């Protein structure tokens, strides 16, 4: 059976000593940044991306992926122990996880979170392995028309589900698409928007964009709130959960996994939305909803599993279609492009070791996280106390050296400085920067497919609604735009996100 031979390739790749150690480094760094408030996975991955360029593509991706799902684990540790969400996806875990810790069940809460996440990670990995080839088969049928329609749909959905104003998100996507077009035009070789500068002919360095908009802008917005955090180290009377607690957690974990796996597939979905959805559902289903907020096990187990499952399955659209569903996936696509691998269904055929190696490494990484997380808790508690003034100069220097190392030039550093100013402007105007990154990555591809589609149809725009696949995708995108303009839904969305800020 193909499935098993594929997994065999995957595990053979992922279990090589080199990949195994970078997977370990990835999950370790991921856990650490998940714990540190003020340093998110997007900024960290942008920071470390140039350093992965010298690695084999699969090794680099394994490490980046490890950082991403490792951050989900780390975020929950701080949420439970000190009521600080290290990550936006673990805000929900603060509600009941911290209450459990206050009731003296810190150990049980951590164990439930870790084991629930592991279960979710395992299921999500199997789902990725099982469904990606099928989805890629569909993608092989896509022509330029369908690809263009799918990108429109993907970008619309990603903007819709990302928080912040929808219309500003659309404007940010367009800004990103435009910035992505800078440089030589593939068809004619014309240099566009280079202002006569030779250094722009290959386009704007996307790591510089990501670092400027995320890593550096984050520093500026965090620097004022830098006050010492007083953290009481929790005492562990008992690190294990009782049988009753395990039974209470079992169904929420399964439901959370299902919700997270589903929501992770959606563009713009992923860890955070999954955890909110799971919490709401657990509370609705519970026989004792009054316990929620006072240490309900279901209120911790469900969202914890959901955010991990969501983080994992959000790889599926990226791996099979080449469409990033969130900022981290956009960075991974950028990493693939650096190695001249065109993201999309062909990766599975042309570089099966990358595709299956990454999937196998996710499962291994999840197993490492369970082993890693529980015994290292005292160390993680110390890490929460690290002051921001120690952290941000380190981020700055590591980023700068990374920017330099991309092409052994200092020019990307100047660009990153410029995008830091732009990022501050966006922050002031309350425009989310993540949609810009998605547009930036997809800009050239979108133009390519658009032009090719109209070349095939000899300039007839009708081609976009004559293909049934294309018209249904564009229709869904249009419907989503209409729905978001209805005021009551908009109000509901803002209510769901108020807890985050």
């Amino acid at each position, binding site marked *: 059976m193909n499935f098993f031979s594929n997994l065999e390739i995957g595990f053979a790749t992922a279990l090589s000593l080199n990949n195994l150690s970078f997977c370990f480094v990835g999950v370790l760094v991921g856990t650490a940044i998940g714990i540190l408030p003020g340093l998110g996975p997007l900024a960290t991955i942008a920071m470390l991306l140039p350093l992965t360029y010298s690695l084999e593509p699969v090794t680099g991706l394994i490490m980046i992926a490890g950082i991403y799902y490792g951050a989900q684990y780390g975020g929950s540790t701080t949420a439970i122990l000190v009521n600080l969400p290290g990550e936006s996806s673990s805000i929900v875990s603060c509600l009941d996880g911290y209450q459990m810790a206050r009731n003296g069940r810190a150990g049980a809460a951590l164990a439930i979170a870790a084991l629930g996440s592991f279960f979710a990670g395992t299921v999500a990995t199997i789902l990725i392995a099982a469904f990606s080839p099928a989805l890629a088969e569909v993608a092989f049928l896509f022509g330029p028309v369908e690809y263009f329609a799918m990108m429109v749909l993907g970008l619309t959905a990603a903007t819709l589900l990302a928080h912040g104003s929808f*219309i*500003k998100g659309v404007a940010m996507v367009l800004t990103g698409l435009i910035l992505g077009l800078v440089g030589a035009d593939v068809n004619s070789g014309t240099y566009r928007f280079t202002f006569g500068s030779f250094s722009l002919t290959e386009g704007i360095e996307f790591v510089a964009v990501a670092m400027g908009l995320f890593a550096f802008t984050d520093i500026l917005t965090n620097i004022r709130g830098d006050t010492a955090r007083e953290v009481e180290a929790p005492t562990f009377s008992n690190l294990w959960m009782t049988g009753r607690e395990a039974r209470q957690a079992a169904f929420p974990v399964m439901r959370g996994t299902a919700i997270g796996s589903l929501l992770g597939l959606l563009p713009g979905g992923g860890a955070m939305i999954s955890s909110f959805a799971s919490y709401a559902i657990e509370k609705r289903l519970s026989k004792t909803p009054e316990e929620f907020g006072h240490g309900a096990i279901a209120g911790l187990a469900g969202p914890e599993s959901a955010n991990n499952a969501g983080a994992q399955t959000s790889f599926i659209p990226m791996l099979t279609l080449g469409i990033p569903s969130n900022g981290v996936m956009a960075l991974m696509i950028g990493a693939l492009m650096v190695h001249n691998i065109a993201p999309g269904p062909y990766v599975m055929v042309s570089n099966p070791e990358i595709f299956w190696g990454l999937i196998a490494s996710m499962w291994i990484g999840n197993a490492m996280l369970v082993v890693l997380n529980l015994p290292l808790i005292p160390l993680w508690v110390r890490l929460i106390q690290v002051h921001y003034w120690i952290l941000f100069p380190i981020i700055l220097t590591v980023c*700068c050296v990374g920017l330099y190392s991309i092409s052994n030039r200092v020019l990307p*550093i100047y660009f990153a400085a410029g995008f830091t100013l732009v990022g501050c402007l966006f922050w002031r105007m309350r425009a989310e920067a993540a949609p810009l990154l998605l547009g930036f990555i997809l800009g050239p591809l979108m133009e390519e497919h658009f032009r090719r589609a109209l070349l095939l149809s000899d300039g007839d725009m009708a081609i976009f609604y004559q293909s049934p696949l294309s018209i249904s995708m564009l229709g869904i995108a249009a419907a989503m735009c209409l729905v978001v303009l209805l005021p009551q839904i908009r109000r509901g969305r803002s209510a769901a996100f108020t807890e985050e800020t």
Partner: protein
Amino acid sequence: MPAMPKRNADIEAGLFFTLFGGLTAALSLQYNLGTIAAMGPGLFPLMLGTLLAVIGLVIFIKGILFGGEEARSLPLWPIILITASLLVFAFLLLTVGLTVAVPAQVFIALRASQHFTVKRAIALSLGLLAFCYVVFVYLLGIPVPMIGI
């Protein structure tokens, strides 16, 4: 009508996107537009720029009519210092080398924090230099000059 915030984020964003979109559209006119069937390099940016300018106008009008969100105030001094620290690092890296660029960056950037002391800046610089040498130069072999060329 909702209360109008003092600094209206929607009006600012609307203006920004309209200007950026308009500029893009205007600049793309200098390239060959081609036809719909055989698009030149200018047409797609022209379309994007126009669309962005229109959306920017919508955001702008929405800001005027409905008030919109309040703009956040920017931390001016940290922005200047952090940006300067990046520029100084880039300038010093190839002229004097990492040994000078790192402490310079740390001193300038740390000024942005209320926790700045000379002792902390020195300690951080030394620690970072050691880290850079071990990880970047020794382990990863990045050809970053420790002492200038």
